[in-house]
């Protein structure tokens, strides 16, 4: 029985027909190799990059955008959110700086995605 999946790796959104598992996995409808990897993962352990915000102590930058460096299991997303919601950032961070080392037992770090600058942004 082939299963229909929509690949979410890029905006093209290829319609995949997937059958078999593990070594016997067969994928049709993918326009690139990422589709095959996506289908395999989606059948066994669907995972997503989580993007959200964390609170900060800076009034000019009240919340900082963050993401997971790598994917976390879809089923663990709300556990991750609970841990993220308890964080308060007390230093000015830049993109790539680690906010949490190991998010909610997933082993995946949470990193900043924005540049908090140095107080009011003045460029001239």
């Amino acid at each position: 029985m082939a299963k229909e999946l929509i690949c979410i790796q890029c905006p093209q959104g290829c319609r995949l027909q997937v059958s078999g598992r593990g070594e016997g996995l067969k994928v049709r409808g993918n326009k690139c190799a990422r589709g095959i990897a996506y289908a395999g993962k989606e059948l066994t352990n669907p995972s997503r990059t989580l993007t959200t915000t964390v609170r900060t102590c800076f009034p000019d930058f009240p919340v900082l955008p963050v993401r997971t460096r790598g994917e976390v299991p879809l089923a663990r997303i709300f556990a991750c959110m609970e841990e993220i919601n308890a964080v308060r950032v007390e230093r000015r961070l830049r993109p790539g700086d680690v906010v949490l080392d190991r998010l909610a037992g997933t082993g995946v770090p949470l990193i900043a995605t924005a540049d908090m600058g140095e107080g009011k942004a003045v460029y001239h």
Partner: protein
Amino acid sequence: MRKDWDVIVIGAGPAGLAAAAAACDAGAGVCLVERESRPGGILKQCIHDGFGLVRYGEKLTGPEYAWRDIEAVRRRNIPIWTETFLLELQRAGDGFVLTMQNREQAVFQLTARALVAATGCRERTARQIFIHGQRPAGIYTAGTVQHMINIQGYLPGRRCVILGSGDIGLIMARRLVLEGARVEGVYEIKPEPSGLTRNLVQCLQDYNIPLHLSTTVTRVLGRERVEGVVVCPADENLRPLPDRGRIVPCDTLVLSVGLIPENDILEPLGVELNPRTGGPVVDQRLAANVPGLFSCGNALHVNDLVDYVSESGEIAGRAAAAYALGRTQPSNHAELVPEGDILYAVPGRLDLAAGGKAVIYLRANRTIGNARLTISAGDKTVLRKRYPVLRPPEMERIVLDLADLPAGAGAVKLSLRGEENG
């Protein structure tokens, strides 16, 4: 501070940042004007990922994508006037005078030989769609909700209905659920969703948020605060069927009903706008009908990928620098005429004197299969392309080498024909 510039770029979002860097690299003295306190434009609040696959071959979040452009502008020492409002634009001699206002200098003027308008777009509001009822608190555009949650750190409501299935609406449905709100559903008057398929999967399906097609909101209930909405199925002519309406209780109505390029500030210059796109009519250098005025990004037409916004910024910035430095020939324009299943195409004309390659962006006006695109001048076909399927939400990009056009080409035809329900 220098007052006279070769090129001034209005707006420090992705289009403006790319334009400024490109103008600088082409040898022009350039500065950026930005009304917000930080550069980056709408990307600052687009904290989700999926940006940059075309330009960088990586999946970046909005702030990460913007950061690369901001760093590129900083490395070039291009000044950015933040928290600075453009009050008025006038032509003066062979250039422009910009009357601006900010906290440090009150009202002041800058002059420029060339202008790049990278002013982005704004959202269609509740006033621009037909919804009955009072005007209670709790009705927001998706972009406003995005700003409240991702920049200010507030949750605007606990129980939300989303009207319109545009990408921002889908992304905000997921965002609201992640932050602890309940999303009752996404309602779309058309029979097909207007957002990208991947967003239907990763924003709605992942979080069990229902999508109701051919259904719309006709009435808002509540006096002080939204208490619910009336949703109605719609017929194939997009007319609501009021006797089949039902009440959905909610405290927030989020509108994701379309974007409009923002070009009001250009009006006094006599700029010609394309009624289909809402942006200026431009040639392949993204030059408008006003000499020295260039347009790019979402102010030119609403894009679905920021990568193409940046590309248009680079084209406009380079062309503006060439104009300002006196490196352009008198133009010789041929109209680019869209035909068949095309909703719109940009640019609207080709400058044959400037030559080079024209990047053409277009959208189909309906979902079509087995689509054939041709570009022809006179009886010569210069480009052919086939698409298995084309959908209006997904913009197509093609490159036309103007050297392939026959000499003395008048109008150039861009024709798209496909089959229903591809």
